[in-house]
């Protein structure tokens, strides 16, 4: 219905006869303790196990303290370290690394104590001070990455992200936006609109702005939709035909899908509940996610840095009598997202989640502050991509909710009722 108004750069040409390059993922088998480290890496934390008795930090992950046999618990740790030795791997038996040689790695003495083997940013030599990041590799496993550091001025997250995406090895841990084709599933709501502008500013090759109906006449002269490199297309995630048609109209391969679609309505279950509203919320949040995932997963799997990022409400963590349908829909969405992530592990496609509290928009006008400004949420989405972080919480409400949920989910479920 909507035709592109902007001349777009053509997709990068490729040899039509060349077999598509497979993207085998980094090797996968891990111990349960290492999985626990990955679960924290997913939250962007830098953690090591420390003994509950003697306090010694330890690595690789163990099931008992090697100093006193005490039990171990995960703790955030200082991120500084020093390169002990480094190497450039030029031959590897592993298919993933064979495609990406040469590979820089080395051993690091952490300020926290243990010696770790880590991926190294280019140019790090023995003796160099480093700042460590706990990343997830393309197989979704925890991986330590050392970045150059000045002990007095450790790099800010944004700088780290810049180094990561500029480093050929670092790029495999993050989701580069520059040069990418990105689909925003709902660019009509303020969050999606802010994202379209932010993605275009971050150098995306093409931002496809999905526009669910009904389409107002102002779409035709909307300044955001008219930005260079932005292509508005009708897209309703509740409609499989619309999803398929929109995907088919995106020129060139799709690298990143950002799902911002949602349907926020108040209402309870038995009281003041509108079942059609609940149903609609489920159609958008849960089934919509599934439709988008089905339509885009094969395309993303063929891309070197394919990613699917879902923006969802922190209400997904517990029921909410005031927004029963919305909370249920977001919970279903989170569940589907987790299943989708497991499906995508073997393809190297990142599945990222950005939790938000109430956003500062018409959907949440009845709520008092704090609310998340759409521009701030957009910035958080870009940061999640730049850091390759699996789970991000934006704003005080979401961060607090996640902290309480992680701490005691049963208590959290009781306390969240209005």
């Amino acid at each position: 219905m909507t035709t592109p108004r902007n001349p777009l750069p053509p997709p990068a040409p490729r040899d039509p006869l060349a077999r598509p390059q497979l993207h085998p993922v980094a090797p996968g088998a891990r111990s349960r303790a290492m999985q626990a480290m990955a679960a924290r890496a997913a939250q962007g934390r830098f953690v090591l196990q420390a003994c509950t008795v003697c306090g010694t930090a330890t690595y690789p992950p163990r099931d008992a303290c090697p100093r006193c046999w005490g039990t171990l618990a995960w703790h955030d740790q200082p991120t500084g370290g020093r390169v002990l030795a480094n190497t450039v791997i030029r031959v590897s038996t592993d298919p993933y690394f064979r495609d990406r040689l040469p590979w820089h790695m080395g051993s690091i003495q952490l300020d926290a104590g243990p010696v770790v083997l880590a991926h190294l940013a280019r140019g790090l030599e023995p003796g160099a001070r480093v700042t460590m990041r706990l990343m997830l590799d393309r197989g979704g496993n925890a991986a330590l990455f050392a970045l150059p550091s000045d002990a007095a001025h450790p790099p800010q997250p944004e700088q780290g992200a810049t180094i990561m995406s500029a480093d050929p090895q670092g790029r495999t841990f993050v989701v580069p936006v520059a040069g990418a084709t990105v689909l925003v599933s709902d660019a009509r709501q303020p969050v999606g609109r802010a994202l379209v502008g932010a993605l275009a500013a971050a150098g995306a090759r093409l931002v496809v702005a999905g526009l669910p109906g009904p389409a107002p006449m102002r779409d035709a002269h909307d300044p955001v939709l008219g930005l260079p490199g932005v292509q508005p297309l009708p897209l309703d995630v509740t409609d499989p035909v619309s999803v398929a048609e929109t995907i088919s109209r995106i020129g060139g391969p799709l690298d990143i899908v950002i799902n911002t679609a949602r349907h926020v309505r108040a209402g309870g279950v038995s009281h003041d509940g509108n079942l059609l509203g609940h149903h609609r919320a489920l159609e958008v949040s849960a089934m919509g996610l599934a439709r988008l995932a089905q339509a885009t997963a094969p395309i993303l799997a063929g891309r070197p840095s394919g990613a699917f990022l879902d923006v969802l409400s922190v209400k997904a963590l517990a029921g909410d009598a005031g927004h029963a349908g919305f909370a249920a829909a977001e919970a279903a969405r989170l569940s589907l997202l987790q299943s989708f992530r497991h499906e995508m592990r073997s393809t190297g496609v990142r599945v990222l989640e950005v939790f938000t509290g109430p956003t500062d928009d018409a959907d949440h006008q009845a709520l008092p502050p704090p609310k998340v400004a759409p521009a701030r949420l957009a910035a958080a989405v870009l940061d999640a991509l730049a850091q390759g972080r699996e789970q991000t919480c934006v704003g005080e409400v979401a961060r607090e909710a996640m902290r309480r949920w992680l701490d005691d989910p049963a208590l959290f479920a009781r306390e969240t009722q209005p």
Partner: protein
Amino acid sequence: MSSSTKRSRMAYDGVVVAAPITVPYQRFSSEPAHGWAGAALRALARETALGPRDLDGFSFSSFSAGPDTAVGLVQHLGLMPRWLDHVPTGGASGVMALRRAARAVQCGDAAIVACVAADTNQIDSFRHTLATFSRFSQDAVYPYGFGGPNATFALITQAYMHEHGVTRADFGRICLAQRANAGSNPLALQRNPLDLETYLAARPIADPVHLFDCVMPCAGAEAFVVTTPEIAAARGWPAARIMATIERHNAYPDDLVQRRGGWAMDVDELWAMAGIGPGDIDCLQAYDDYPVIVAMQLEDLGFCPPGTIARFLRETHFGIDGTLPLNTNGGQLSAGQAGAAGGYQNLTEGLRQILHCPLGAQVPGARRAAISGFGLVNYDRGVCTAAAVIEAL
């Protein structure tokens, strides 16, 4: 255990080691490890006329016999031992199998123990072995671009070169000498002479480790027999006595990068028990997965004073006719690394040299051999170290 609580160790009286067996290595084999173990026992039977029911002790080492352990092998090979051991220490398994079997024989728990190490090397099985080698390796090594142990030893090598002022050319002296030694060994997989220029110009594998610093994984099996001097004499087997052994695991865990092995903790005990010094042995069969580990053993076992390894490497002739004959069959660097059997070949080769039945050239007049093992890079370093001194009867 503190030294004050340590009892003096019993000598290995009443025990001998005999019948060194090497099944010729193959680069790749579709035969499972069980078949290689069978081949080792067939060769042992030819050498000793022992049959399955004649063995009352069995010790087994392998990386590739899964899901079987020594237990599965017993039934598979028709054994009925009254003493059974499974030694999973890889490159240290030869010495460790020897010292365990020796005590069993000495105490009467067994009379004839066959010690066998066998590993196959199917296409892609090396990668599989690496990927599932250990939990720490799975979690914290393999995911970091792993190309076999090359990267781990690259880090150790870099730190070692820096600490000791050792150059690639110094390591080259070890590799070149071993290749020259392999020249007379018809079973060595790599026998072409190697010169320093070629060694230095080899392609990098994981800096500073280059092609000729790496062993070639292969399939193979090794075996020997531990028994009493009486049985050996009655059956007419040439045999050697065990002068001393040491063993250590996870030594120096606080060294940031591995710069020495457990030998350094136990070296005094080794020579004290043997009653001789490093200068009294006729050949050294040291574990040689990478030249840096050979250098460590030379220093840790007392062949050169601490801190002098660079000079020692430059001044020592490691050939069969040299001042310190080293890895006289070519070592793993030239003969090939047959998994756990690679942890046995130092023992079988040392035994052959002092029994004067070598695969290749004989170290003139050799009577005593030092054997050193190093095994299991569980995470960032080798965990298991062992050494033995043996002497022909």
